[in-house]
């Protein structure tokens, strides 16, 4: 019997097929729709409409605000947590880490439903604080995505660097500021990208927590449900461009990191 052998490039075929069918081809569909009108003629009107309407720009602003605040809250909570988890000699720290990752194993609508009940016990009327609740919901949802990369990058931190800094007269604060923080920047960057971008579009959280204001994701959905593929695709493309820009900026950080001491995550 003939042995079946694959060379390296053949092993890539499943992924390549997937990539072409579900990533690249739809991308072309989006670009096509974004630059055409209902009759199929080429137009820039969709984009002009987007950047000249105070409503759509307002939505962009609101989404940015929501995702930036979410990211900051996540960072503030996640950094100390990841630091303690990574740096302490605590025996049970893997159990602790597991506790933070555990929520990711549970379906997120289920988690948000539970959160909804908890919040309504605390706040009484949930609808009174839509923005605040959305931030809590998003944080609840995305926190593990922030902790994990931070944890990995802090785990790799070379102890000798810290000792050297301390020997050279740095107090704890200086050591943190000069050594720990700069070396954990790749972790911060990948954590931020993993939280910032999804939280701009995850409108299910808003729906479930009674925030009736649209973010970018809900805007796309509302255009699509009104059979307006052109404007929906246009907004998807705008989002793609924003994501591309953010990645471009963040890549500069991770590139430096890859050269100097190996990739994190």
């Amino acid at each position, binding site marked *: 019997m003939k042995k079946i052998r694959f060379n390296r490039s053949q092993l890539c075929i499943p992924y390549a097929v997937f990539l072409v*069918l*579900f*990533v690249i*081809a*739809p*991308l072309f*569909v*989006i670009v096509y729709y974004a630059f055409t009108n209902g009759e199929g003629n080429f137009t820039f009107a969709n984009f002009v409409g987007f950047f000249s309407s*105070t*409503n*759509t*720009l*307002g*939505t962009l*602003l*609101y989404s940015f605000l929501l995702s930036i605040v979410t990211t900051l809250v996540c960072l503030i909570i996640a950094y100390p947590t990841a630091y303690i988890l990574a740096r302490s000699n605590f025996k049970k720290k893997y159990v602790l880490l597991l506790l933070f990752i555990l929520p990711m194993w549970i379906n997120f609508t289920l988690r948000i439903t539970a959160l909804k009940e908890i919040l*309504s016990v605390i706040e009484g*009327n*949930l*609808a*009174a604080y*839509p923005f605040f609740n959305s931030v809590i919901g998003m944080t609840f949802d995305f926190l593990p995505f922030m902790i994990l990369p931070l944890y990995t990058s802090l785990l790799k931190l070379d102890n000798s660097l810290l000792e050297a800094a301390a020997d050279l*007269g740095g107090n704890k604060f200086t050591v943190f500021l000069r050594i720990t923080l700069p070396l954990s920047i790749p972790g911060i960057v*990948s954590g931020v*990208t*993993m939280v910032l*971008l*999804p939280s701009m*579009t*995850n409108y299910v959280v808003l*729906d*479930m927590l*009674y*925030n*009736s*204001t*649209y973010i970018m*994701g*809900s*805007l*796309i959905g*509302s*255009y*699509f*449900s*009104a*059979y*307006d593929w052109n404007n*929906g*695709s246009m907004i*998807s493309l705008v*989002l*793609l461009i924003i*994501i591309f820009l953010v*990645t471009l900026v963040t890549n500069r950080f991770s590139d430096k990191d890859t050269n100097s001491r190996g990739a994190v995550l």
Partner: protein
Amino acid sequence: MIKFKRFSAIAAACCLLGGSVIAFGGCGGVKERVTLRVCNWEEYIDLGDWGEEERIDVANPFTQEESIFGENAMIADFEQWFAENYGYNVKVEYSTFGTNEDLYNRLSLGDVYDLVCPSDYMMMKLLAEDAVEKYSENFFNGENNYYSQYVSPYIDGVFSQYEWDEYAACYMWGTTGLVYNPEKINTEDISTVKVLLNENYKRQVTIKDNVRDSYFAALGIVNGNELIKPDLTAETRSLLLNDISESTIANAEDVLKQIKENVYSFETDSGKADMVTGKVIANYQWSGDAVHIMDEADGDETELWYSVPQECSNLWFDGWIMLKKGINGNEQKREAAEAFVNFLSRPDNAVRNMYYIGYSSSIAGDENCSTVFDFLEYNYGDYEEAEQTFEYDVSYFFGENSVITVDADCLDVEDSGEINRGRQLFAQYPPANVTARSVVMLDFGDKLGQINQMWINVRCLDLKDVSPLAYILGAVAVVLVVSACLLCKFRYKLFIKNKTGKGYERVEK
């Protein structure tokens, strides 16, 4: 992570591709077996598996049983019934949709169904696009046809009036109104749709996240003063509540913006549960879901009521239509599709569906078959312990002299004899005074885009509405962040440029 993100942005486009590929399946020409592709609303048919305590003690003349009981799913029962009566097999491919727009999108993306169940305005849209297959002549004349035999004269009248009758068979129907908790909200406030703007109930009332129902409610407020005039004709009422002129759309936008600030939220699917748990005290809902909510709340010992607002009530109908693309001239498919509608219209099956989903069937029965009416009496006719009884008249639906004696406590009868609020029976079969002032919502036609844009404007944060103070604060924050970044980046150049560190000279790259 980029891929992950990119994915969510283009998921819809993927569906577009996937959908058109799948659409080529099915459609075999095998004689013995025909595949019927049905697309219906979610949770809109009996799935069987009832508990023994759910058995309905109403004689079933169609199966010669003493009671009506949903043992198997309706679809399975249909397949069996079809094989017995038509001599060949049918396989039902059953799928569901969440909104009319969802269904329309799927159809326009290339999904093919033989039989679908959209609401009135979507039927009109599909009819206008010439996508709907006529029912065969003998469907409406046939002796053994349950639909033509047992459909309510009222439903028949409406369907003839709008000229749907050759193309559609009504499945369920109802009104829109407000489910409410009478202990928390007073009768006067709940009898008008203005309760959505009532400051006393700020953040305590919900409304559906749905352009059409929200726009309809907004029209009830915009045109409210004219709608409560006593001598209003049905035509004027219909015009006022189907008003899609530019100025009205603009006014509705303002009203909806105020509503957004005042209501609990535009709920997508949480309204039912929130009503039962008491998070909200009123919910603008479809009558069938209202019945469902009241049933649930009864289990929790909370008594909820249903009110149809004075100004506006939407009368809606969901009907079975066959699609030309699906049937495609295949006579067996047409026969199977008509048989499916026919089977669902058999009064015992209508009762099963009504019990299971809470909505009201279009089927009324006739002088020889009173199964549906018996079911109503079985459900609501329990008045022996009542202090006072009321003769509830549903003649308009069930034919002459159809009166149910019910506990007077489940209805709010006004001095004029009108009933505008009540419990399950009222929601399921509104009295004639309510149906008389209810209006069928027509298709928006070429104003659809404009009204959708209006809805988007309502839901989006408008930069014009942001206060100047917020702009200033935002600008200050941005400046602070940027300067902090710059400071970090150029701190050596700015502060320690000419100083040397402890014994070292700084080497610039």
